[in-house]
């Protein structure tokens, strides 16, 4: 029945579909070979629509590349120097090879030749230098932000020749190469970079080197991408390097989640982004593929403010760590697609180790710890010490739709061992204003953060070198500082991995970070006709390799 309906809708859609006929970019000689490769390929053709809940704020590349929404478009319009897959494996892309010195302070990148931006500019060493410079520094006066997670140790880069770039750092930076595959590190044409912010904000004028071009767009409405026919430099890791197969991809804003899913179910659209987890099982049963890829990054959890009483007491933090039933969160709020946290970084991050023992649900241990710390249960079941209630205020994260439901469940779990939990749910603007790491009245800051390289983790945790000081420890924890400095100066992963393992154990043991679950921030429901999409290390879907059954 549904099958027949969707076929009807599809034929009607095909009738309604306007045939795009735009060819602005001058075709280069590579086009001929590329065309020859895929001409007559039965997989060619097809148009898909992707329904999304937001299209973000601005299209300035630096300010929007990391957006959970706009990142989808950038992933098709631009390329990166290296490719990072879902397991964090780094492989060559526009940088065909690279070398580093012993201390990891100098890197040489060797570029693929013959790559061009859609405005005709060659993607050569000088173009890469221009990109590295703006990622690091931005242009603050002009409203162009730096890329937040780009190594702050960056010193300079120079074009040795047309395909060789030399990059220097002020200190060892082992994370540099993986960071090049991070979603912020998108290569755009030097001509685009030279433009003022107001022009960079016009998506139609931005040139990347990706397999798709922006054909048309309207702010807050849609972005329509069309295949670039002379594209011939896809990442070898995805098993295809020629032009994409699908003709067009249309990202359309539909703010109501049930409407997005209903449109895919009725065959009016191909992908619905961010469906609610509760709907996934019935969609799967109805034969709609559902993807819940995890990005490389921190798990979803709380960074505890150790300046705030009673969380300056390690026993209270450890009680909190043991008093949360993480399996129940997955069983109640999520589906089996979600995974238990095994550390405070996602388990697919290279260098992540398994610390499940430290995260086991043990209410008796939690009660014992609270007793030892002097928190005594009153007649109402709430623990008190010196007349103060044992309370916890959770600020649900507006960037994660399920955050409030998880907090409500945690409130019930903690109530059993004598905690009084308050939940605050703010909108994005208010949240950004009131809720900070270590902020007053914020005992725990809920983390939703991706990163490409675990080496950047340690430097975030304290306040040295502009770190974010997640636990409000400053420089007070000697062990943490020592681990941070050793990890930062490690010149190879062999030296670094044991240190990372030690860092994970220590942070969880001290109750500095309280994981909830491994995070899935991007949920995809798609039409069974669409096949072959690939999810990268940041859990964005790439339709570069996808095909659609007619």
């Amino acid at each position, binding site marked *: 029945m549904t099958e027949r309906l969707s076929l009807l809708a599809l034929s009607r859609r095909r009738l309604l579909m306007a045939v795009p006929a735009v060819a602005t970019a001058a075709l280069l000689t590579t086009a001929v070979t590329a065309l020859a490769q895929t001409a007559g390929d039965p997989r060619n053709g097809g148009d898909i*629509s992707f*329904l999304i809940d937001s299209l973000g*704020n*601005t*299209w*300035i590349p630096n*300010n929007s590349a*990391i*957006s*959970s929404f706009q990142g989808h478009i950038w992933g098709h319009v631009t390329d990166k120097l290296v490719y990072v897959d879902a397991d964090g494996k780094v492989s060559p892309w526009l940088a065909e090879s690279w070398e580093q010195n012993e201390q990891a302070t100098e890197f040489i990148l060797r570029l693929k030749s013959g790559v061009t931006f859609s405005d005709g500019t060659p993607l050569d060493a000088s173009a890469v230098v221009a990109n590295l410079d703006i990622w690091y520094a931005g242009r*603050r*006066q002009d*409203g162009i*932000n*730096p890329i*937040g*997670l780009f190594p702050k140790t960056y010193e300079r880069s120079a074009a040795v020749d047309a395909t060789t770039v030399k990059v220097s750092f002020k200190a060892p930076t082992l994370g540099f190469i993986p960071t090049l595959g991070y979603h912020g590190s998108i290569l755009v044409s030097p001509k685009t970079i030279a433009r003022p*912010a*107001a022009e*960079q*904000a*016009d998506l139609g004028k931005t040139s990347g080197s990706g397999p798709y071009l922006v054909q048309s767009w*309207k*702010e*807050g*409405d849609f972005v329509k991408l069309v295949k670039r026919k002379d594209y011939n430099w896809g990442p070898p890791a995805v098993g295809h390097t020629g032009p994409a197969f699908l003709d067009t991809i249309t990202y*359309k804003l*539909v*703010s109501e989640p049930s*409407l997005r899913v209903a*449109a895919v179910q009725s065959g*009016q*659209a191909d992908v619905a982004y961010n469906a609610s987890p509760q709907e996934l099982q019935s969609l799967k049963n109805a034969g709609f593929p559902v993807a819940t890829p995890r990005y490389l990054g921190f798990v979803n959890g709380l960074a505890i403010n150790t300046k705030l009483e009673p969380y300056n007491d390690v026993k209270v933090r450890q009680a909190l760590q043991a008093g949360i039933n993480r399996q129940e969160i997955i069983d109640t709020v999520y589906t089996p697609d979600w995974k238990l946290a095994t550390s405070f970084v996602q388990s697919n991050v290279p260098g992540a180790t398994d610390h499940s023992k430290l995260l086991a649900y043990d209410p008796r241990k939690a009660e014992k710890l609270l007793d030892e710390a002097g928190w005594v249960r009153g007649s109402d079941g709430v623990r008190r010490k010196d007349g103060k209630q044992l309370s916890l205020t959770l600020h649900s*994260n507006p*960037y994660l739709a399920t955050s409030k439901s998880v907090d409500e469940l945690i409130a019930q779990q903690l109530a059993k061992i004598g905690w009084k939990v308050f939940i605050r749910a703010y*909108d*994005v*603007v*208010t*949240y*950004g*204003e*009131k809720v*900070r790491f270590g902020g007053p009245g914020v005992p725990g800051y809920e*983390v*939703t*953060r*991706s*990163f490409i390289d675990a080496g950047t983790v340690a430097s*975030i945790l304290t306040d040295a070198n*502009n*770190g*974010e*000081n997640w636990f409000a420890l400053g420089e007070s924890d000697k062990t943490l500082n020592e681990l941070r400095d050793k990890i930062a100066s490690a010149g190879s992963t062999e030296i670094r991995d044991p240190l990372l393992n030690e860092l994970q154990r220590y942070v969880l043991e001290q109750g500095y970070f309280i994981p909830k679950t491994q995070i899935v921030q991007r949920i995809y429901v798609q039409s069974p006709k669409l096949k072959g999409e690939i999810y990268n290390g940041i859990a964005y879907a790439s339709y570069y390799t996808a095909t659609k059954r007619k």
Partner: protein
Amino acid sequence: MARTPAARGNPYLSYAAKRLIQAVVVILLAYVFTFVVVSILPGDPITSVLRDPQNGFSESEIQEIIAAQGLDKPIIIQLWTSLSHFVVGDLGLSMRSSRPVTTLIAEVLPSTLVLAGTGLVVALLLAMVIAYGTQFVPKRFGQGLLRGLPSLSLSVPNFVIGLVLIHAFGFQLGLFRVLEPNSLWATVFAGIALGIPVSAQIAEVLIANLDNESRQEYAAVARGRGLGQMRLFTKHLLKPSSLPVVTVLALTVGELLGGSLITETVFGRTGVGSLVQRSVSTQDLPVLQAIVSLTAVVFVLINLAADLVYPLLDPRVKLLGASKFRPTSADEGSGVSQAVAS
């Protein structure tokens, strides 16, 4: 206000000059009011983007960027900067998207004009059918029902009408698809949802005027000379009773603009309404100010036009009498500010 010598001799000119100065004051007040209200609210679009946890900016970096943008200056200085640009017609850049405000508004205006136009046509047609119907439908065949329609349609909020229309004609009958809000049928039904409440006011005025005119002596004389109801209506009653609609039309501009904000959201159209919604949720001050000020300008101009055209249409109108009881654009300015603030 000191009168200019030229205006002193001509009451019409002095009245026009007064209205013009009023209008400018209203627009400036609307501008300052919006600025102050939005500035008092916590947060701003730039920091809310910077604080996106994916960015990983530290507090000191965020402060640096804010300072570079001049957002840490006192409100009064920021207001002065923005006002001095506004006065010379420079609407500046959107804080949220960094694109020129004029571009943003130009992108969404056509869609809203089409919607408002459709709504206006629907409202006029509906009002005419109802009002002229009251003149022809006999009392025992439901004239009372027709007379009750305007107050009924005025009391149903237009998002309810919109949702009912979407459900009935979109989902049930499949006349339009929710994903294509700009298709012909979707636009027509959005126009209907917008036009129904607006039609009520026009219909009320028309009915009152028709009743009034048909009680006049000249109508009685015409009837006495054996003129049929149809002839009487078309030849004598239609024009004089339809004139006040010009005034009401000027007033419904506000209704149409306010209503289109809601209707656009319900029907998923991308227009001025959705731009306002996006700008409010991110506190995009330059865009909000431009829209509020432009709305004030439009409203003032249309009311001014109505005032100036009216005497030409109906010689019976006394020049200064008309202005006494017509609401000024000040009411509208506050109405928009309320809509924006809510």
